[in-house]
């Protein structure tokens, strides 16, 4: 098994659209959550979202390109460009051994909704001619592969909230096995449309807005949590084999040492500790094979959506998998400030995990004033924490459909 390292990061998020400003917002617990700015805002009962507000399409793309690019592909390309630039790749050594591994929950949701609106609301009898290629779920990955000339596998994973965590895990496996020597992996989501938000509203999992401070309405592990806040964005990473990175003198951000994935095989939306524990143990076992022991893990970026049931089950799972050690591992849920980025969430949160490792600084769980007694671990409440000895960390993504994905990373000295 080849060692697999990360050499580039890219972020488009509601709290900053480059890795540094994203991480600064995490540390400052600066929330990107607010009532939606959209023409249909007054039709939502629960209007809180985490929008990417500083994204100017015209700055990144020619007008001609834009008709082919749904917002989720635009986010993907911008995040991938950042990661590529960060990795400082001058020339592909072997384009056929370079892959694209991407995650999305709903793909080109806005394009699809515009088409339906044209047909069913406006009564037009035609849709935009590039609707199909703009909304297909693999459009983002294909656009990334085209832009960077990645001629190897180009795979898209749709596992709801775990999509991009799976994409990173599968890229890690492909590089580990030698099938691929470099990849762009990550995910993107742009699903803040009326139709989709109505669907979430009806499912009764969204946060109830705090009247005075709406930006604090998503409160993972808190006694008064009411649910999550949907957000949009993208996270991209350049992964490569350690040998490949060293040979080209790349700056290594961190090493991926474990990937666990399982399915609860029980229920579409209710999480199950047994399934989560299987994924955590699988990742830990793999990491052990790469010389990392559970005791070295000094941070967990939780899935932490702030639903009543989700945070409690995740707490149980961490306790079951880590045993005595669970009480001593700092955990934080960054969704409190960047919202739930769905198909992009796993990647963006893994980037937060890698940056925490790099900077020896843990982002806090924002708005956590009083923890739920059933959530009784160390959640790094309110304030960031400096951990000079931090060398390994875990990121959890537990999705609808019962998909559980765990990624483990460590620093390379």
């Amino acid at each position, binding site marked *: 098994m080849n060692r697999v390292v990360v050499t580039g990061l890219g972020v488009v998020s509601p709290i900053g659209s480059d890795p540094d400003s994203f991480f600064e917002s995490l540390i400052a617990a600066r929330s990107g959550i607010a009532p939606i700015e959209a023409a249909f805002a007054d039709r939502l009962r629960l209007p809180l979202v985490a929008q990417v507000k500083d994204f100017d399409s015209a700055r990144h793309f020619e*007008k*001609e390109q834009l*008709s*082919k690019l749904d917002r989720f592909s635009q986010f993907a390309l911008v995040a991938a460009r950042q990661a590529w630039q960060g990795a400082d790749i001058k020339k592909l050594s072997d384009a056929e051994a370079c892959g694209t591994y991407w995650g999305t929950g709903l793909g080109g949701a806005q394009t699809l909704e515009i088409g339906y609106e044209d047909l069913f609301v406006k009564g037009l009898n*035609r849709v*935009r*001619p*590039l609707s199909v*290629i703009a909304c297909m779920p693999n459009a983002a990955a294909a656009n990334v592969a085209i832009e960077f000339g990645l001629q190897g596998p180009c795979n898209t994973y749709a596992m709801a909230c775990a999509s991009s965590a799976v994409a990173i895990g599968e890229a890690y496996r492909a590089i580990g096995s030698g099938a691929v020597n470099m990849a762009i992996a990550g995910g993107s989501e742009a699903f803040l449309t009326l139709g989709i938000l109505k669907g979430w509203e009806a499912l009764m999992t969204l946060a109830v807005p705090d009247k005075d401070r709406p930006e604090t309405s998503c409160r993972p592990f808190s006694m008064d949590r009411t649910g999550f806040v949907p957000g949009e964005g993208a996270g991209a990473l350049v992964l490569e084999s350690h040998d490949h990175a060293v040979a080209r003198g790349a700056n290594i951000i961190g090493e991926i040492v474990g990937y666990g994935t399982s399915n609860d095989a029980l229920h579409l939306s209710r999480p199950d500790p047994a399934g989560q524990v299987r994924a955590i143990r699988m990742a830990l076992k793999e990491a052990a094979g790469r010389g990392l022991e559970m005791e070295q893990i000094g941070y967990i970026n939780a899935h932490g959506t702030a639903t009543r049931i989700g945070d409690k089950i995740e707490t149980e799972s961490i306790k079951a998998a880590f045993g005595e050690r669970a009480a001593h591992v700092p955990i934080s849920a960054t969704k409190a400030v960047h919202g739930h980025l769905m198909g992009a969430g796993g990647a963006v949160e893994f980037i937060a995990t890698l940056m925490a490792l790099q900077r020896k600084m843990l982002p806090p769980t924002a708005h956590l004033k009083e923890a739920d007694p059933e959530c009784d671990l160390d959640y790094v409440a309110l304030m960031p924490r400096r951990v000079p000895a931090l060398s390994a960390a875990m990121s959890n993504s537990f999705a609808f459909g019962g998909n559980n994905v765990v990624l483990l990373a460590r620093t390379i000295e």
Partner: protein
Amino acid sequence: MAPISGETPSILAQVQALLQSHFGLAAESVQPGAALADLGIDSLSAIEFVFELEGHFNISLSDGRADLTTVADLVAVVEHALGEANGPT
């Protein structure tokens, strides 16, 4: 594309004007014989442009499978569709 002096511009002139505004092209570049590829218009962009032509002329071209290679080809499909819309004379 309103007629300037009550006289409707030719279909060619209208297509040329639309090409210029849609793709930011210079007037002299959109000659009838000009290849769309040479103007930087690939197959997908051409399909997107056909959508604009449909809206402008209030016609439907989508059932055609014409090979759109040049500016003149675009004009021809529009003329054909307008002829059909007006019925046999």
